[in-house]
């Protein structure tokens, strides 16, 4: 089981689906960011699985995964800073109460 590419890809697909559900369904902005992190991790797992099983991609996949991790760190930093800034203005972390453009 651990020697077939399919099991890793199915695992990352399930992880991506869980992240999608969290992003769509949660009300808290930080929960949505956590779900985004789950989805990024699923994509990273896919990249590394292909790198481990397809010989020409072997080193490249690790490099791309490292770059993805760095970009995800930047994304998390800016995203959380935006959430904190919005919280300071609106006093709530719930995204369905950010409705001032509706009125």
């Amino acid at each position, binding site marked *: *089981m*651990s*020697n*077939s*590419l*399919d*099991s890793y890809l199915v*695992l990352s*697909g*399930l992880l*991506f*689906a*869980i992240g*999608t*559900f*969290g992003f*769509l*369904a*949660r*009300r*808290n902005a*930080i*929960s949505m*960011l*956590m*779900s985004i*992190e*789950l989805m990024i*991790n699923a994509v*990273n*797992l896919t990249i*590394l699985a292909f*790198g*481990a*099983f*397809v*010989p020409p991609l*072997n*080193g490249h*996949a*690790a*490099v791309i*995964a*490292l*770059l993805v*991790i*760095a*970009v*995800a*760190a*930047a*994304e998390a*930093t*800016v995203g*959380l800073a*935006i959430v*904190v800034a919005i919280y300071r203005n609106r*006093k*709530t*972390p719930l995204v369905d109460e950010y409705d001032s453009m509706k009125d």
Partner: protein
Amino acid sequence: MPIGDSIPLLGIRWDDILFVVLAATLLVSALLVVTLRDIIRCGLALIVSFASLAGIYALLGDPLVAATQVLVYIGAISILILFAIMMTQTKDAPTRLVFQTQVWIAAGASAVIGVVIAATVLATTWPAGGQRLWTATADVAHLLFRDYVLPFEVVSVLLTAAVVGAVYLARREPSRREEDRS
């Protein structure tokens, strides 16, 4: 004394049992992240899922990426998320409703995504070998600093910009606040 390739009495390979345990931990903790009511516990479950994912990376033969996962995700991003949770949660915040009103539509859509991805993966014949390859860290270093040196530098600029932007966004603005009040 080295342990063998497989578990002595059962005959199951260690790699398989490790994969099953890590994958189950990963999926369960990811489900806890998206369903738990208390958001601090969501953050802690997120750490567990990052850790089991680091184990899967090590199982895939990528020790450098596994170490980076532990350092960057568990060490930095999780702590950042926990701090942001503590800064944005108030005691009187409504914790009763965790989900939006369209939670069942979201569940259906993500279930469809998961099923479609799994079916596509299982129906495709990948041009892949049946054996995992060990990724040598020296090869990764040569690739990163020779072929991928431009993306590497761009990422370093991006990280600097992100840090500056985060500090700019998250700092308090006392002067503007007073202008609003007056």
